[in-house]
């Protein structure tokens, strides 16, 4: 094939795109290059850091599981036939995307704090949020739920409704059809949404720092180390959190829906 010089406009677009790619990848690569074996080794013996990572992963997992339990059925309903209030509910669930996270933290503090009706009632049964692990889970759930519900809704909406009809005509009750057809076909999309929500929960800082500064999740610990001891002290936990995020990113890409519809 004869060589064809690239279109001039494509060259301009490529140049503009390259600036953005460098802007995103540059700082992350730069941070990873700062990882020194000695410093990282030391980080793994840092008990406070290890405890914060465990807390972050556990709280993010709890928030994601809770989100999936409550959000996947909602996503299924939102993807189905229109019903009164569907647009309103969809908007409400997606609202946390546009709310600044410290604002979300303050709202959660007011809603779940001991002086509110909800927080007071939950406190009586031993569920404390402010400065307790449930507060971290609540903040993570609040910020990650739009991702989980939207992603799952898209996964359900992408399934041809004729498949469910065919399954019903072949003898499936609605519940059985959901289990045999709808859920298996949506599963990769849901898993991708759940993974993305989990990654979002792991990276949350703004809402958590207001609701539950202590015990510290890793993002709060990084902030704490940076403000108390300076940049060098914040680098090892930052690298470890970045590696966790990158691993999750790889998993999400792997889970992108590929089943033909």
């Amino acid at each position: 094939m004869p060589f064809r010089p690239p279109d001039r406009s494509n060259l301009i677009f490529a140049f503009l795109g390259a600036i953005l790619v460098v802007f995103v990848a540059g700082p992350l690569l730069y941070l990873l290059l700062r990882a020194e074996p000695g410093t990282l080794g030391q980080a793994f013996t840092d008990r406070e850091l290890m405890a914060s990572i465990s807390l972050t992963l556990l709280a993010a997992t709890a928030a994601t599981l809770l989100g999936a339990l409550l959000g996947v059925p909602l996503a299924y309903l939102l993807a189905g036939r229109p019903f009164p209030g569907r647009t309103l509910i969809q908007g409400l669930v997606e609202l946390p995307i546009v709310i600044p996270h410290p604002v979300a933290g303050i709202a959660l503090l007011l809603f779940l704090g001991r002086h509110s009706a909800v927080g007071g009632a939950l406190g009586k049964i031993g569920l404390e949020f402010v400065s307790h692990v449930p507060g971290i889970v609540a903040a993570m759930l609040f910020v990650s739920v739009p991702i989980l519900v939207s992603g799952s809704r898209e996964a359900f909406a992408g399934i041809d409704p004729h498949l469910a009809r065919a399954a019903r005509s072949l003898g499936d009750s609605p519940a059985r059809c959901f289990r045999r057809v709808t859920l298996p076909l949506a599963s990769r999309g849901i898993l991708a949404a759940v993974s993305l929500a989990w990654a979002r929960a792991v990276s949350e800082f703004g809402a958590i720092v207001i609701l539950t500064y202590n015990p510290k999740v890793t993002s709060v610990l990084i902030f704490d180390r940076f403000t108390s001891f300076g940049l060098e002290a914040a680098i090892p936990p930052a690298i470890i959190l970045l590696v966790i995020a990158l691993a999750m990113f790889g998993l999400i890409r792997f889970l992108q829906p590929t089943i033909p519809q």
Partner: protein
Amino acid sequence: MIRLEGIEVRLGQFALRDVSFEIPPAGYGLLIGPTGSGKTSVLEAIAGHAPLRGGRIVLHGKDVTAVPPERRGVGVVYQQNNLFPHLSVAENIRYGLAHSDLSEADQRARVGELADSLGLDHILGRGVANLSGGEAQRVGLARALAPRPSVLLLDEPFASLDPATRFTLRQQLLDLHRQEGVTTLQVTHDFQEALQLGNLVAVMSEGRIVQHGRPEEVFRHPNSSFVARFIGAANVIEGIVTRVGDAEGADRQFAARFSAGSVTLDVIADREGLLNAVIHPEDIVLNHRPTGGSARNQLPATVTAVELAGPVTYIHLDAGWPLRAAVTSASAEAMGLAAGVALFATVKATAIRLV
């Protein structure tokens, strides 16, 4: 047996209105009509996927109007086959057997039996993503038939197939229909398919059944210019009918004159006024010279085009109106019919249907 009694369905802006017809047990019915006439909605209603606002659906004597889809015993094959993409061919066919009382071995035997009838043995273990159009439709048909439904609904199953595959699948479908004895209703927009497959045809327009009956009967005696034009089997000419004789016989028919533009035809009518004359292409006789006999309408015409359609050739004529006549391809050749040839088109008054 499928019996629809005045069913009413509303789907957004579209509505099915007073749809009624009956297909006898083990019969083969066809619903035909233009796109958007409501054919698929009728199937959806029978399968239980479109709620009724009125009327009744009776399947084999049982009123199923309020019965959910999974308990209607209805198999459905869609135009786009809608196979389950996460299951293999065998798993797709076996899907509906999960609810049956059949043992594992009997289920496998049923899958094997259908695969054998439809020539699917060699692809049972494959996924459905890369099947050809014909294979996918055969899998869809086997899946629908596997649980031995009492009613089979087919939504334009051959629409996206090439002619050769369509022909083969049509034959296999007829064989299976005879073998399984399942009452079948198929949606199509191809009247030729209706003539070949069905023993009842219902023509739909704008959510209503406008004519139903045996396919040959609908073909020979369309009850409206819409049906005549839609089935594409006739010349339809609008004109004025004027009485010239007295009414005779039980049906009070009379000799009349049909005028459209500069051309006049002798016809047998039962009413006067603005009507459509329906003339089937095969009822037009072509000759190079005027002929005698009982035929009363002899029109000088010129051939405008010759359309070869296998053993039959359609001769397009200008006889004052555009007309289409059908002759055997051998006759067309023997008569030297070609564009520009002048001849006489003859049609009996009794062969002209007024609607």
